[in-house]
């Protein structure tokens, strides 16, 4: 079964071709150009290089967040557009689940951290049991204040392997709290890669066996919604007095 995957949830544009559980080709760009400029040309080059055509594909996979709101939507709109025209099933995976594959085979807990601004990370916690097909999710995806999350991880008394686009930048801060128990993988392993999306999408396909309705996974509400809800709450509590 042949498929392509798209991950634009961070600054990295990652497009890959997969055949069953095998990675066939991947494009990775971590430059200042936008996803919108890179994504179709990258896909086109990959297909040409692999000597594949769009018509040979059996499935489209996309990473649906969390991450950059705009990036999430670009990836989904592109994947949906391709799937709609080619009449292919569409499969989506969570960015943090995909990143867990960066730490496949590690003994430590694997903790992907993605920059969520406002001093927060999108994060989750996984563990790979020896020989497992998929990482166990120990803490589900959430947006977490950085200090609170590091304190929580410290309290677990386990070794933690950090991956994701925030890992390198936060190295000092992480080691300050977790010391020797923190492992930070180099960026070329730790940033989102097509290889991880291919693995996660194939795993997901094994579970579902069919396409699905894909919606963005933001975790966070928009600021306007949050502010409006706060105002509503204030209005309601005033009304009760």
């Amino acid at each position, binding site marked *: 079964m042949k498929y392509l995957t798209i991950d634009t949830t961070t600054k990295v544009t990652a497009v890959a071709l997969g055949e069953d559980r095998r990675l066939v080709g991947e494009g990775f760009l971590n430059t200042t150009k936008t996803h919108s400029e890179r994504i179709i040309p990258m896909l086109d080059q990959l297909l040409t290089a692999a000597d594949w055509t769009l018509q040979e594909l059996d499935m489209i996979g996309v990473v649906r967040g969390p991450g950059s709101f705009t990036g999430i*939507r670009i990836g989904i709109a592109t994947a949906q557009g391709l799937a709609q025209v080619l009449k292919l099933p569409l499969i989506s995976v969570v960015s943090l689940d995909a990143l867990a594959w960066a730490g496949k085979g590690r003994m430590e807990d694997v903790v992907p951290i993605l920059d969520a601004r406002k001093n927060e990370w999108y994060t989750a916690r996984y563990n790979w049991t020896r020989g497992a097909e998929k990482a166990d999710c120990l803490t589900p995806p959430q947006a977490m204040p950085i200090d609170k999350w590091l304190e929580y991880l410290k309290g677990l008394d386990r070794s933690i392997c950090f991956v994701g686009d925030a890992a390198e930048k936060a190295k000092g801060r992480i080691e300050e709290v977790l010391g020797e128990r923190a492992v930070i993988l180099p960026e070329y392993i730790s940033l989102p890669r097509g290889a991880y999306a291919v693995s996660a999408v194939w795993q997901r396909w094994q579970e579902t066996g069919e396409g699905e309705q894909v919606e963005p996974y933001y975790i966070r509400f928009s600021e306007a919604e949050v502010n409006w809800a706060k105002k509503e709450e204030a209005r309601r509590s005033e009304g009760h007095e």
Partner: protein
Amino acid sequence: MTESQKSNVVILGIETSCDETSAAVLLNGRDLRSHVISSQITTHQKYGGVVPEIASREHSLHFQPVVQQALDEAKLTFRDLSAIAVTYGPGLVGSLLVGVSGAKAMAYAAGVPLIGINHLEAHIYANFLEHQDLKFPLLALLVSGGHTHLILFEAHGQYKVLGHTRDDAAGEALDKVARTLGLGYPGGPQIQRIAQEGNAEAFNFPRAMLEPGSLDFSFSGMKSAVLNTLNSAHMRGETLSVPDIAASFQQAVVDVLVRKALLAIKETRVKTLLLAGGVAANRLLRETLDQKLAEKGVCLVYPSPIFCTDNGAMIATAGYYHYLKGDFAPWTLNAVPGLGLV
């Protein structure tokens, strides 16, 4: 391009620049086979205006179904298309990117050309959908929530901006006054509605004409005059008639637009004025222009109201003329939120 390629041109037009997700299928530039508009107005109403992040989220959810519905209603598939046209600016960047990304993937997968459309140009082209016999040169008055432009349109794709607003757009000023009057969003239609019950001569708001001969606009001072009038009445403990204020302000805005349009006609000696943009649906503006232009022997053309607000049909119409010229976009097409007309 061969003659047969020009004889059965089917364009899918896609618009996501602000708060409408819209798609249309157009045959040969005149035969609108389908037109789907999914409006977000009710979603944004509780915030008193368009919230960019929420608009993008809504586009992301509605984009694919809207396009599919447009194709289904036209009883066509992607394989029947000659090209896909999409708005790439100006507009809200997050919203534009949903349409641009989706349209690009669709065109790439369908093996058809992609056409990048300037939203302002498309508003003007909305006139060509219902009037194919328009003769160049044309003059266009583009009035919307974001834009107030007087444009000399010399040939397909050739524009000269004769004047534009130096501060607020006409629609923006109407929106702000509507909000202050508690009329809600979107302001233009609300002002028009309540103005019917008011006296347009009750208040004499200033008409900002700028330097003699200038074709530029300025609505910010006119808007402030309304707010000052309201404030000082409030200080005196008086309440003013909302319909009178709405009617008088609408009259002032229309007067300025009409005077500037007449000045541009005098200078350019163009025989046809195209009205375009959301405010082009304003009845007072249409009627006043109609009457004043008839006196001068100038023809006024405007789109049906449905083609004045943001819509996919105008994108497809502009796309058709780009298609005839073989004017296609590369796969690197990006959203340009501040895109100008020239």
